[in-house]
Protein backbone atom coordinates (compact mmCIF):
# COMPACT_ATOMS: atom_id res chain seq x y z
CA UNK A 1 0.00 0.00 0.00
CA UNK A 2 2.77 2.39 1.00
CA UNK A 3 4.64 1.63 -2.16
CA UNK A 4 1.52 2.21 -4.19
CA UNK A 5 1.06 5.62 -2.61
CA UNK A 6 4.67 6.58 -3.22
CA UNK A 7 4.36 5.50 -6.81
CA UNK A 8 1.26 7.63 -7.20
CA UNK A 9 2.98 10.63 -5.68
CA UNK A 10 5.98 10.06 -7.87
CA UNK A 11 3.78 9.79 -10.91
CA UNK A 12 1.97 12.99 -10.04
CA UNK A 13 5.22 14.85 -9.47
CA UNK A 14 6.62 13.62 -12.74
CA UNK A 15 3.55 14.56 -14.62
CA UNK A 16 3.89 18.02 -13.14
CA UNK A 17 7.50 18.11 -14.30
CA UNK A 18 6.36 17.27 -17.78
CA UNK A 19 6.88 13.56 -18.12
CA UNK A 20 4.76 11.75 -20.69
CA UNK A 21 2.11 9.17 -20.08
CA UNK A 22 4.63 6.35 -20.27
CA UNK A 23 6.51 7.87 -17.35
CA UNK A 24 3.43 8.26 -15.26
CA UNK A 25 2.71 4.57 -15.65
CA UNK A 26 6.20 3.51 -14.62
CA UNK A 27 6.98 2.12 -11.17
CA UNK A 28 10.73 2.25 -10.49
CA UNK A 29 10.39 -0.42 -7.79
CA UNK A 30 9.27 -2.99 -10.34
CA UNK A 31 11.04 -1.83 -13.50
CA UNK A 32 13.48 0.96 -14.34
CA UNK A 33 11.85 4.28 -15.22
CA UNK A 34 12.89 7.27 -17.26
CA UNK A 35 12.81 10.76 -15.81
CA UNK A 36 12.97 13.87 -17.88
CA UNK A 37 13.95 17.25 -16.54
CA UNK A 38 14.55 20.52 -18.31
CA UNK A 39 18.31 19.98 -18.20
CA UNK A 40 18.34 16.33 -19.19
CA UNK A 41 17.33 12.75 -18.62
CA UNK A 42 18.05 10.00 -16.14
CA UNK A 43 16.82 6.47 -15.53
CA UNK A 44 16.31 4.93 -12.13
CA UNK A 45 15.47 1.66 -10.45
CA UNK A 46 14.49 1.45 -6.80
CA UNK A 47 15.01 -1.27 -4.21
CA UNK A 48 12.13 -3.00 -2.48
CA UNK A 49 10.90 -1.42 0.67
CA UNK A 50 10.33 2.06 1.92
CA UNK A 51 12.67 4.99 1.53
CA UNK A 52 14.60 7.04 2.09
CA UNK A 53 16.97 5.05 -0.12
CA UNK A 54 20.70 5.38 -0.34
CA UNK A 55 21.70 5.60 -3.99
CA UNK A 56 24.39 4.78 -6.47
CA UNK A 57 24.52 7.28 -9.30
CA UNK A 58 26.32 5.52 -12.13
CA UNK A 59 27.70 7.58 -15.01
CA UNK A 60 28.01 5.80 -18.33
CA UNK A 61 31.10 5.72 -20.52
CA UNK A 62 31.72 7.51 -23.83
CA UNK A 63 28.87 6.74 -26.21
CA UNK A 64 26.68 5.21 -23.52
CA UNK A 65 23.33 6.34 -22.16
CA UNK A 66 21.41 6.05 -18.92
CA UNK A 67 18.90 3.86 -20.78
CA UNK A 68 21.63 1.39 -21.74
CA UNK A 69 23.20 1.51 -18.26
CA UNK A 70 19.96 0.65 -16.52
CA UNK A 71 19.61 -2.41 -18.80
CA UNK A 72 22.81 -3.82 -17.23
CA UNK A 73 20.77 -6.15 -15.05
CA UNK A 74 23.72 -7.70 -13.27
CA UNK A 75 25.04 -4.38 -12.08
CA UNK A 76 21.67 -2.79 -11.37
CA UNK A 77 20.17 -5.67 -9.43
CA UNK A 78 23.35 -6.16 -7.38
CA UNK A 79 22.86 -2.56 -6.25
CA UNK A 80 19.09 -2.52 -5.75
CA UNK A 81 19.25 -5.90 -3.97
CA UNK A 82 21.43 -4.20 -1.36
CA UNK A 83 18.77 -1.59 -0.80
CA UNK A 84 20.17 1.16 -2.99
CA UNK A 85 18.45 3.16 -5.67
CA UNK A 86 20.30 2.93 -8.98
CA UNK A 87 20.36 6.21 -10.86
CA UNK A 88 21.66 6.35 -14.40
CA UNK A 89 21.84 9.86 -15.84
CA UNK A 90 22.49 10.44 -19.54
CA UNK A 91 25.22 12.75 -20.84
CA UNK A 92 24.87 15.12 -23.79
CA UNK A 93 24.54 13.75 -27.32
CA UNK A 94 27.91 13.16 -28.92
CA UNK A 95 28.97 15.44 -31.73
CA UNK A 96 29.43 14.44 -35.34
CA UNK A 97 26.18 12.52 -35.57
CA UNK A 98 27.48 9.70 -33.42
CA UNK A 99 24.94 7.86 -31.32
CA UNK A 100 25.10 7.83 -27.56
CA UNK A 101 26.16 10.49 -25.14
CA UNK A 102 29.24 11.82 -23.41
CA UNK A 103 30.05 13.88 -20.33
CA UNK A 104 31.49 17.34 -20.22
CA UNK A 105 34.22 16.13 -17.89
CA UNK A 106 36.67 18.78 -19.05
CA UNK A 107 34.12 21.41 -17.92
CA UNK A 108 34.16 23.17 -21.26
CA UNK A 109 31.94 26.23 -21.32
CA UNK A 110 30.08 27.68 -24.28
CA UNK A 111 26.80 27.82 -26.14
CA UNK A 112 24.80 24.64 -25.93
CA UNK A 113 27.35 22.97 -23.68
CA UNK A 114 25.87 21.67 -20.47
CA UNK A 115 27.53 22.12 -17.10
CA UNK A 116 27.42 18.46 -16.08
CA UNK A 117 28.51 19.09 -12.50
CA UNK A 118 25.41 21.22 -12.17
CA UNK A 119 23.35 18.65 -14.08
CA UNK A 120 24.24 15.80 -11.72
CA UNK A 121 23.32 18.01 -8.77
CA UNK A 122 19.98 18.66 -10.48
CA UNK A 123 19.44 14.92 -10.96
CA UNK A 124 20.09 14.35 -7.27
CA UNK A 125 17.72 17.12 -6.18
CA UNK A 126 15.07 15.65 -8.44
CA UNK A 127 15.64 12.08 -7.27
CA UNK A 128 15.54 13.02 -3.62
CA UNK A 129 12.16 14.70 -4.13
CA UNK A 130 10.69 12.22 -6.58
CA UNK A 131 12.12 8.86 -5.55
CA UNK A 132 12.77 9.42 -1.87
CA UNK A 133 16.51 9.12 -2.40
CA UNK A 134 18.48 10.04 0.73
CA UNK A 135 20.50 13.02 -0.42
CA UNK A 136 23.06 12.34 2.33
CA UNK A 137 23.77 8.77 1.28
CA UNK A 138 24.68 9.09 -2.37
CA UNK A 139 27.65 7.37 -3.99
CA UNK A 140 28.62 8.66 -7.42
CA UNK A 141 30.41 6.16 -9.59
CA UNK A 142 31.05 5.82 -13.25
CA UNK A 143 33.00 3.94 -15.85
CA UNK A 144 35.59 5.35 -18.26
CA UNK A 145 34.17 8.71 -19.40
CA UNK A 146 31.78 8.42 -16.47
CA UNK A 147 34.76 7.87 -14.18
CA UNK A 148 36.27 11.05 -15.59
CA UNK A 149 33.03 12.88 -14.84
CA UNK A 150 33.13 11.53 -11.29
CA UNK A 151 36.63 12.98 -10.87
CA UNK A 152 35.41 16.30 -12.24
CA UNK A 153 32.61 16.43 -9.70
CA UNK A 154 34.75 15.43 -6.73
CA UNK A 155 37.36 17.99 -7.72
CA UNK A 156 35.01 20.90 -8.42
CA UNK A 157 32.11 20.23 -6.04
CA UNK A 158 33.07 17.54 -3.53
CA UNK A 159 29.92 18.21 -1.48
CA UNK A 160 27.76 16.85 -4.34
CA UNK A 161 27.79 13.30 -2.94
CA UNK A 162 28.75 11.48 0.23
CA UNK A 163 31.37 9.53 -1.71
CA UNK A 164 32.77 8.76 -5.16
CA UNK A 165 33.78 5.53 -6.86
CA UNK A 166 35.15 6.12 -10.36
CA UNK A 167 36.33 3.19 -12.50
CA UNK A 168 38.87 3.38 -15.33
CA UNK A 169 38.51 7.13 -15.72
CA UNK A 170 40.67 9.98 -14.48
CA UNK A 171 41.32 13.69 -14.97
CA UNK A 172 42.40 15.35 -18.17
CA UNK A 173 45.68 17.11 -18.78
CA UNK A 174 46.39 19.76 -17.78
CA UNK A 175 45.18 18.79 -14.34
CA UNK A 176 43.64 21.54 -12.23
CA UNK A 177 46.04 23.32 -9.89
CA UNK A 178 43.90 22.40 -6.91
CA UNK A 179 40.68 20.60 -6.09
CA UNK A 180 38.04 22.24 -3.94
CA UNK A 181 38.11 20.20 -0.75
CA UNK A 182 37.93 16.87 1.06
CA UNK A 183 35.69 13.96 0.11
CA UNK A 184 35.65 10.18 0.11
CA UNK A 185 36.81 8.44 -3.04
CA UNK A 186 37.59 4.87 -4.06
CA UNK A 187 39.25 4.72 -7.45
CA UNK A 188 39.31 1.41 -9.34
CA UNK A 189 41.58 0.81 -12.32
CA UNK A 190 42.83 -2.04 -14.48
CA UNK A 191 46.60 -2.50 -14.48
CA UNK A 192 46.42 -3.46 -18.17
CA UNK A 193 43.91 -0.81 -19.27
CA UNK A 194 44.95 0.34 -22.78
CA UNK A 195 41.98 2.71 -23.32
CA UNK A 196 42.37 4.89 -20.26
CA UNK A 197 45.80 3.76 -19.12
CA UNK A 198 46.97 4.77 -15.66
CA UNK A 199 49.50 7.11 -17.28
CA UNK A 200 46.90 8.69 -19.57
CA UNK A 201 46.78 8.79 -23.35
CA UNK A 202 46.27 11.31 -26.13
CA UNK A 203 42.92 11.06 -27.88
CA UNK A 204 40.93 12.94 -30.53
CA UNK A 205 43.93 13.12 -32.83
CA UNK A 206 46.16 14.40 -30.05
CA UNK A 207 43.96 17.39 -29.24
CA UNK A 208 43.29 16.27 -25.71
CA UNK A 209 45.27 14.08 -23.35
CA UNK A 210 44.13 12.07 -20.39
CA UNK A 211 45.90 12.74 -17.12
CA UNK A 212 48.12 10.54 -15.00
CA UNK A 213 46.26 8.65 -12.26
CA UNK A 214 49.02 9.06 -9.69
CA UNK A 215 49.34 12.77 -10.26
CA UNK A 216 45.56 12.95 -9.83
CA UNK A 217 45.71 11.01 -6.58
CA UNK A 218 48.39 13.37 -5.38
CA UNK A 219 46.11 16.30 -6.17
CA UNK A 220 43.30 14.70 -4.16
CA UNK A 221 45.65 14.02 -1.24
CA UNK A 222 46.28 17.74 -1.13
CA UNK A 223 42.58 18.56 -1.42
CA UNK A 224 41.71 15.97 1.22
CA UNK A 225 44.41 17.40 3.50
CA UNK A 226 46.12 14.02 3.85
CA UNK A 227 49.08 14.36 6.15
CA UNK A 228 51.46 12.27 4.06
CA UNK A 229 51.85 10.88 0.58
CA UNK A 230 52.37 7.23 1.50
CA UNK A 231 49.20 5.30 2.22
CA UNK A 232 48.14 4.40 5.72
CA UNK A 233 46.92 0.96 4.67
CA UNK A 234 47.81 -1.43 1.87
CA UNK A 235 46.43 -4.85 1.20
CA UNK A 236 45.51 -7.44 -1.38
CA UNK A 237 41.92 -8.49 -1.05
CA UNK A 238 39.49 -10.23 -3.37
CA UNK A 239 41.73 -9.87 -6.41
CA UNK A 240 42.30 -6.14 -5.81
CA UNK A 241 45.51 -4.39 -4.88
CA UNK A 242 44.32 -1.71 -2.50
CA UNK A 243 45.97 1.25 -0.81
CA UNK A 244 44.18 3.77 1.37
CA UNK A 245 44.89 7.18 2.80
CA UNK A 246 42.96 7.72 6.02
CA UNK A 247 45.14 10.31 7.77
CA UNK A 248 43.33 13.13 6.00
CA UNK A 249 40.79 15.81 6.92
CA UNK A 250 38.03 14.51 9.22
CA UNK A 251 35.69 12.36 7.16
CA UNK A 252 37.94 12.33 4.11
CA UNK A 253 39.11 9.01 2.72
CA UNK A 254 41.09 8.18 -0.38
CA UNK A 255 41.53 4.68 -1.68
CA UNK A 256 42.92 3.01 -4.80
CA UNK A 257 41.98 -0.49 -5.99
CA UNK A 258 43.93 -1.94 -8.87
CA UNK A 259 42.93 -5.15 -10.61
CA UNK A 260 45.03 -7.07 -13.13
CA UNK A 261 42.50 -6.65 -15.96
CA UNK A 262 41.90 -4.08 -18.65
CA UNK A 263 39.30 -1.43 -19.47
CA UNK A 264 36.25 -2.84 -17.78
CA UNK A 265 34.04 -2.78 -14.74
CA UNK A 266 35.79 -5.58 -12.92
CA UNK A 267 34.05 -8.54 -11.39
CA UNK A 268 32.91 -7.83 -7.89
CA UNK A 269 33.20 -4.07 -8.24
CA UNK A 270 29.73 -3.14 -6.96
CA UNK A 271 30.15 -5.29 -3.88
CA UNK A 272 33.56 -3.82 -3.17
CA UNK A 273 32.35 -0.28 -3.77
CA UNK A 274 29.24 -0.62 -1.61
CA UNK A 275 31.15 -2.43 1.16
CA UNK A 276 33.63 0.44 1.10
CA UNK A 277 30.86 3.02 1.01
CA UNK A 278 29.11 1.53 4.01
CA UNK A 279 32.34 1.08 5.96
CA UNK A 280 33.43 4.67 5.37
CA UNK A 281 29.97 6.09 6.10
CA UNK A 282 29.57 4.16 9.32
CA UNK A 283 30.65 6.35 12.17
CA UNK A 284 32.27 8.84 9.83
CA UNK A 285 32.20 12.41 10.94
CA UNK A 286 30.07 14.50 8.69
CA UNK A 287 32.09 16.63 6.36
CA UNK A 288 29.19 18.07 4.50
Amino acid at each position, binding site marked *: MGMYLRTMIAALLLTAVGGGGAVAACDPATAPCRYEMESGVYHAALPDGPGPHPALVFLHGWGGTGAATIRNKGLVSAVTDRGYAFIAPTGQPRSGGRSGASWNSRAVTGDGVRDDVFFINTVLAHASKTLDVDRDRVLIGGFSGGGMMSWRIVCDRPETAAAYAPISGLMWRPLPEVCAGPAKLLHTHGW*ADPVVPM*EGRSVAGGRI*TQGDLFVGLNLLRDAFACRA*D*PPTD*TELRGGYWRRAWTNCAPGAHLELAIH*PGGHSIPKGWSKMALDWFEATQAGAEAIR
Partner: protein
Amino acid sequence: MIRSLARAASICAALAYFGPSLAFAEEVQDCGAPEGESCKVDLGEYRLLLPGPLDGGAKGAPALIHLHGAGGSGRGVLRMGEMTREALSRGFAVIAPIGLPHSATRRHRSWNFQSFDGRRDEFAFISQVLDDAADRFGLDRDRMLMTGFSIGGSQTWYLACRDHRIAAAYAPVAGGFWREHPKDCDGPVRLLHTHGWRDTTVPLEGRPLRSGARVQGDIWEGMQLWRAENGCDGLRADAFDDRGQFLLRRWTICDAGTALEFALFPGGHGVPKGWAAMALDWFEAMMEETREIR
Protein backbone atom coordinates in the same frame (compact mmCIF):
# COMPACT_ATOMS: atom_id res chain seq x y z
CA MET B 1 99.21 3.30 -6.96
CA ILE B 2 96.45 0.85 -6.15
CA ARG B 3 95.14 1.45 -9.61
CA SER B 4 98.43 0.54 -11.26
CA LEU B 5 98.71 -2.53 -9.07
CA ALA B 6 95.28 -3.51 -10.23
CA ARG B 7 96.39 -3.09 -13.83
CA ALA B 8 99.46 -5.17 -13.23
CA ALA B 9 97.29 -7.80 -11.66
CA SER B 10 94.98 -7.73 -14.62
CA ILE B 11 97.86 -8.14 -17.02
CA CYS B 12 98.92 -11.19 -15.05
CA ALA B 13 95.37 -12.40 -15.23
CA ALA B 14 95.33 -11.84 -18.96
CA LEU B 15 98.52 -13.86 -19.28
CA ALA B 16 96.83 -16.52 -17.23
CA TYR B 17 93.97 -16.68 -19.71
CA PHE B 18 95.84 -16.53 -22.90
CA GLY B 19 99.21 -17.94 -22.02
CA PRO B 20 99.98 -21.52 -22.89
CA SER B 21 100.99 -22.41 -19.36
CA LEU B 22 98.64 -24.50 -17.27
CA ALA B 23 100.37 -23.28 -14.13
CA PHE B 24 97.59 -20.75 -13.59
CA ALA B 25 94.76 -23.17 -14.18
CA GLU B 26 94.00 -23.50 -10.50
CA GLU B 27 94.36 -19.81 -9.82
CA VAL B 28 91.66 -18.61 -7.46
CA GLN B 29 90.45 -15.06 -6.97
CA ASP B 30 92.95 -13.02 -4.99
CA CYS B 31 90.40 -10.77 -3.36
CA GLY B 32 86.74 -10.18 -2.83
CA ALA B 33 85.62 -13.63 -1.69
CA PRO B 34 83.18 -13.71 1.24
CA GLU B 35 86.05 -14.67 3.51
CA GLY B 36 89.33 -12.80 3.39
CA GLU B 37 90.29 -9.47 1.91
CA SER B 38 87.93 -7.31 -0.08
CA CYS B 39 89.03 -6.01 -3.47
CA LYS B 40 90.28 -2.44 -3.31
CA VAL B 41 89.98 0.40 -5.78
CA ASP B 42 90.95 4.06 -5.23
CA LEU B 43 87.57 5.06 -3.89
CA GLY B 44 86.59 1.98 -1.94
CA GLU B 45 86.06 -1.74 -1.77
CA TYR B 46 83.98 -4.54 -3.19
CA ARG B 47 83.43 -8.25 -2.94
CA LEU B 48 82.37 -10.74 -5.55
CA LEU B 49 81.48 -14.31 -6.40
CA LEU B 50 82.70 -15.82 -9.64
CA PRO B 51 80.74 -18.40 -11.63
CA GLY B 52 83.82 -20.58 -12.13
CA PRO B 53 87.60 -20.61 -12.17
CA LEU B 54 89.46 -17.62 -13.58
CA ASP B 55 90.43 -19.48 -16.70
CA GLY B 56 87.11 -21.22 -16.93
CA GLY B 57 83.63 -20.07 -16.03
CA ALA B 58 84.71 -16.58 -14.99
CA LYS B 59 86.40 -15.82 -18.28
CA GLY B 60 84.29 -13.34 -20.21
CA ALA B 61 81.40 -13.86 -17.81
CA PRO B 62 78.60 -11.32 -17.51
CA ALA B 63 77.97 -9.85 -14.08
CA LEU B 64 75.14 -8.90 -11.80
CA ILE B 65 76.09 -5.97 -9.59
CA HIS B 66 74.02 -5.51 -6.46
CA LEU B 67 74.13 -2.37 -4.34
CA HIS B 68 73.11 -3.17 -0.77
CA GLY B 69 70.48 -1.29 1.18
CA ALA B 70 71.18 0.99 4.16
CA GLY B 71 73.04 -0.96 6.81
CA GLY B 72 73.90 -3.70 4.34
CA SER B 73 77.33 -4.94 3.38
CA GLY B 74 79.24 -6.62 0.58
CA ARG B 75 79.27 -9.88 2.50
CA GLY B 76 75.53 -9.54 3.07
CA VAL B 77 74.92 -9.25 -0.66
CA LEU B 78 76.99 -12.37 -1.33
CA ARG B 79 74.79 -14.17 1.21
CA MET B 80 71.61 -13.40 -0.74
CA GLY B 81 71.00 -17.04 -1.55
CA GLU B 82 68.36 -16.94 -4.24
CA MET B 83 69.99 -14.10 -6.14
CA THR B 84 73.52 -15.51 -6.06
CA ARG B 85 72.37 -19.06 -6.93
CA GLU B 86 70.32 -17.73 -9.83
CA ALA B 87 73.19 -15.59 -11.12
CA LEU B 88 76.02 -18.09 -10.68
CA SER B 89 74.04 -20.94 -12.22
CA ARG B 90 73.56 -18.80 -15.32
CA GLY B 91 77.25 -18.04 -15.47
CA PHE B 92 77.04 -14.54 -14.01
CA ALA B 93 79.51 -13.13 -11.51
CA VAL B 94 77.94 -11.30 -8.56
CA ILE B 95 79.65 -8.04 -7.68
CA ALA B 96 78.91 -6.34 -4.37
CA PRO B 97 80.32 -2.82 -4.02
CA ILE B 98 80.54 -1.68 -0.40
CA GLY B 99 78.89 1.54 0.73
CA LEU B 100 80.50 4.01 3.11
CA PRO B 101 79.29 4.47 6.68
CA HIS B 102 76.59 7.11 6.83
CA SER B 103 78.17 10.53 7.22
CA ALA B 104 75.91 11.58 10.10
CA THR B 105 75.40 8.42 12.11
CA ARG B 106 78.77 6.83 11.19
CA ARG B 107 76.99 3.52 11.48
CA HIS B 108 74.94 2.25 8.58
CA ARG B 109 76.73 1.86 5.30
CA SER B 110 74.81 3.68 2.62
CA TRP B 111 75.09 5.47 -0.70
CA ASN B 112 75.59 9.09 -1.45
CA PHE B 113 73.79 10.08 -4.62
CA GLN B 114 72.35 13.52 -4.24
CA SER B 115 74.96 16.10 -3.33
CA PHE B 116 78.59 15.24 -2.97
CA ASP B 117 79.56 17.91 -0.43
CA GLY B 118 82.99 16.40 -0.05
CA ARG B 119 81.74 12.84 0.16
CA ARG B 120 82.45 10.04 -2.25
CA ASP B 121 81.36 10.39 -5.84
CA GLU B 122 79.58 7.04 -6.10
CA PHE B 123 79.50 7.14 -9.88
CA ALA B 124 83.28 7.31 -9.96
CA PHE B 125 83.53 4.61 -7.31
CA ILE B 126 81.19 2.16 -9.05
CA SER B 127 82.92 2.83 -12.37
CA GLN B 128 86.23 1.89 -10.74
CA VAL B 129 84.72 -1.27 -9.29
CA LEU B 130 83.31 -2.45 -12.60
CA ASP B 131 86.46 -1.63 -14.56
CA ASP B 132 88.58 -3.32 -11.92
CA ALA B 133 86.40 -6.42 -11.82
CA ALA B 134 86.55 -6.66 -15.60
CA ASP B 135 90.34 -6.19 -15.63
CA ARG B 136 91.18 -8.33 -12.66
CA PHE B 137 88.83 -11.26 -13.26
CA GLY B 138 88.26 -11.06 -17.00
CA LEU B 139 84.54 -10.32 -16.74
CA ASP B 140 82.65 -8.91 -19.71
CA ARG B 141 82.38 -5.18 -19.05
CA ASP B 142 79.68 -4.92 -21.74
CA ARG B 143 77.31 -7.37 -20.06
CA MET B 144 76.83 -5.98 -16.60
CA LEU B 145 73.42 -5.69 -15.01
CA MET B 146 73.26 -3.05 -12.28
CA THR B 147 70.83 -3.82 -9.48
CA GLY B 148 70.30 -2.59 -5.97
CA PHE B 149 67.87 -2.70 -3.10
CA SER B 150 66.25 0.18 -1.24
CA ILE B 151 68.77 3.03 -1.11
CA GLY B 152 70.91 0.80 -3.34
CA GLY B 153 67.95 0.84 -5.75
CA SER B 154 67.92 4.61 -5.58
CA GLN B 155 71.65 4.65 -6.23
CA THR B 156 70.96 2.47 -9.28
CA TRP B 157 68.47 5.04 -10.63
CA TYR B 158 71.00 7.82 -10.10
CA LEU B 159 73.82 5.92 -11.79
CA ALA B 160 71.61 5.24 -14.82
CA CYS B 161 70.60 8.89 -14.87
CA ARG B 162 74.15 10.24 -14.57
CA ASP B 163 75.50 8.16 -17.46
CA HIS B 164 73.57 5.19 -18.76
CA ARG B 165 76.74 3.62 -20.14
CA ILE B 166 78.03 2.61 -16.73
CA ALA B 167 76.13 -0.68 -17.11
CA ALA B 168 74.32 -2.51 -19.89
CA ALA B 169 71.02 -2.46 -18.00
CA TYR B 170 69.45 -1.64 -14.64
CA ALA B 171 67.15 -3.59 -12.36
CA PRO B 172 66.59 -1.61 -9.17
CA VAL B 173 64.31 -2.84 -6.38
CA ALA B 174 62.37 -0.73 -3.88
CA GLY B 175 64.21 2.53 -4.42
CA GLY B 176 63.99 5.39 -6.92
CA PHE B 177 64.67 9.09 -7.22
CA TRP B 178 64.51 11.39 -4.23
CA ARG B 179 63.06 14.88 -4.17
CA GLU B 180 63.75 17.01 -6.07
CA HIS B 181 63.68 14.50 -8.90
CA PRO B 182 66.27 15.13 -11.60
CA LYS B 183 64.82 17.18 -14.45
CA ASP B 184 66.83 15.36 -17.03
CA CYS B 185 68.96 12.26 -17.41
CA ASP B 186 71.76 11.20 -19.70
CA GLY B 187 70.06 9.41 -22.51
CA PRO B 188 68.11 6.19 -22.81
CA VAL B 189 68.15 3.24 -20.45
CA ARG B 190 67.22 -0.39 -20.22
CA LEU B 191 65.54 -0.51 -16.87
CA LEU B 192 63.26 -2.90 -15.01
CA HIS B 193 61.99 -1.40 -11.78
CA THR B 194 60.51 -3.70 -9.13
CA HIS B 195 58.55 -2.46 -6.12
CA GLY B 196 56.32 -3.84 -3.35
CA TRP B 197 52.72 -2.69 -3.16
CA ARG B 198 52.89 -2.89 0.63
CA ASP B 199 56.29 -1.20 1.00
CA THR B 200 56.09 1.26 3.90
CA THR B 201 59.83 1.97 4.13
CA VAL B 202 60.13 3.27 0.59
CA PRO B 203 56.48 3.58 -0.40
CA LEU B 204 55.63 3.99 -4.08
CA GLU B 205 54.68 7.60 -3.38
CA GLY B 206 57.86 8.32 -1.42
CA ARG B 207 58.17 9.46 2.17
CA PRO B 208 59.80 12.30 4.07
CA LEU B 209 62.74 11.43 6.33
CA ARG B 210 64.24 13.31 9.26
CA SER B 211 61.23 15.64 9.48
CA GLY B 212 61.33 16.33 5.79
CA ALA B 213 65.04 17.15 5.59
CA ARG B 214 65.14 14.57 2.82
CA VAL B 215 62.18 13.24 0.89
CA GLN B 216 61.97 10.06 -1.14
CA GLY B 217 60.45 10.63 -4.57
CA ASP B 218 57.44 9.15 -6.31
CA ILE B 219 58.16 6.03 -8.35
CA TRP B 220 55.30 6.61 -10.82
CA GLU B 221 56.52 10.11 -11.44
CA GLY B 222 60.09 8.91 -11.81
CA MET B 223 59.03 6.49 -14.53
CA GLN B 224 57.82 9.50 -16.54
CA LEU B 225 61.40 10.68 -16.85
CA TRP B 226 62.60 7.28 -18.10
CA ARG B 227 59.80 7.26 -20.69
CA ALA B 228 60.97 10.63 -21.92
CA GLU B 229 64.62 9.55 -21.96
CA ASN B 230 63.70 6.43 -23.92
CA GLY B 231 61.67 8.38 -26.45
CA CYS B 232 58.53 6.40 -25.71
CA ASP B 233 55.68 7.31 -27.98
CA GLY B 234 52.81 8.35 -25.81
CA LEU B 235 52.44 7.87 -22.12
CA ARG B 236 50.91 4.51 -21.60
CA ALA B 237 52.51 1.17 -21.18
CA ASP B 238 51.63 -1.01 -24.14
CA ALA B 239 52.36 -4.49 -22.91
CA PHE B 240 51.17 -6.08 -19.72
CA ASP B 241 51.86 -9.29 -17.97
CA ASP B 242 50.50 -11.00 -14.92
CA ARG B 243 53.32 -13.44 -14.22
CA GLY B 244 53.49 -15.31 -10.95
CA GLN B 245 53.06 -12.77 -8.21
CA PHE B 246 54.22 -9.89 -10.42
CA LEU B 247 52.08 -7.37 -12.26
CA LEU B 248 54.22 -6.13 -15.12
CA ARG B 249 53.85 -3.18 -17.44
CA ARG B 250 56.19 -2.49 -20.30
CA TRP B 251 56.76 0.44 -22.63
CA THR B 252 57.78 -0.96 -26.00
CA ILE B 253 57.03 1.78 -28.51
CA CYS B 254 60.24 3.59 -27.66
CA ASP B 255 63.65 4.25 -29.22
CA ALA B 256 65.48 1.20 -30.52
CA GLY B 257 67.75 -0.43 -27.98
CA THR B 258 65.85 0.86 -24.98
CA ALA B 259 63.74 -1.10 -22.54
CA LEU B 260 61.47 -0.01 -19.76
CA GLU B 261 59.43 -2.19 -17.42
CA PHE B 262 57.75 -1.88 -14.09
CA ALA B 263 57.04 -4.92 -11.92
CA LEU B 264 54.78 -4.62 -8.93
CA PHE B 265 54.61 -7.37 -6.32
CA PRO B 266 52.22 -7.74 -3.39
CA GLY B 267 54.80 -7.65 -0.61
CA GLY B 268 56.58 -5.01 1.39
CA HIS B 269 60.12 -3.64 1.58
CA GLY B 270 62.22 -6.51 0.33
CA VAL B 271 63.69 -8.27 -2.66
CA PRO B 272 60.83 -10.55 -3.63
CA LYS B 273 61.08 -14.23 -4.36
CA GLY B 274 61.41 -14.75 -8.09
CA TRP B 275 62.93 -11.33 -8.70
CA ALA B 276 66.43 -12.53 -9.62
CA ALA B 277 65.11 -15.01 -12.17
CA MET B 278 62.79 -12.37 -13.64
CA ALA B 279 65.55 -9.76 -13.88
CA LEU B 280 68.09 -12.17 -15.33
CA ASP B 281 65.57 -13.57 -17.85
CA TRP B 282 64.90 -9.99 -18.94
CA PHE B 283 68.60 -9.15 -19.14
CA GLU B 284 69.61 -12.32 -20.97
CA ALA B 285 66.84 -11.92 -23.55
CA MET B 286 68.04 -8.38 -24.21
CA MET B 287 71.67 -9.41 -24.50
CA GLU B 288 70.65 -12.16 -26.91
CA GLU B 289 68.80 -9.63 -29.04
CA THR B 290 71.73 -7.25 -28.98
CA ARG B 291 74.03 -9.98 -30.19
CA GLU B 292 71.68 -10.81 -33.06
CA ILE B 293 71.66 -7.16 -34.11
CA ARG B 294 75.45 -7.08 -34.05
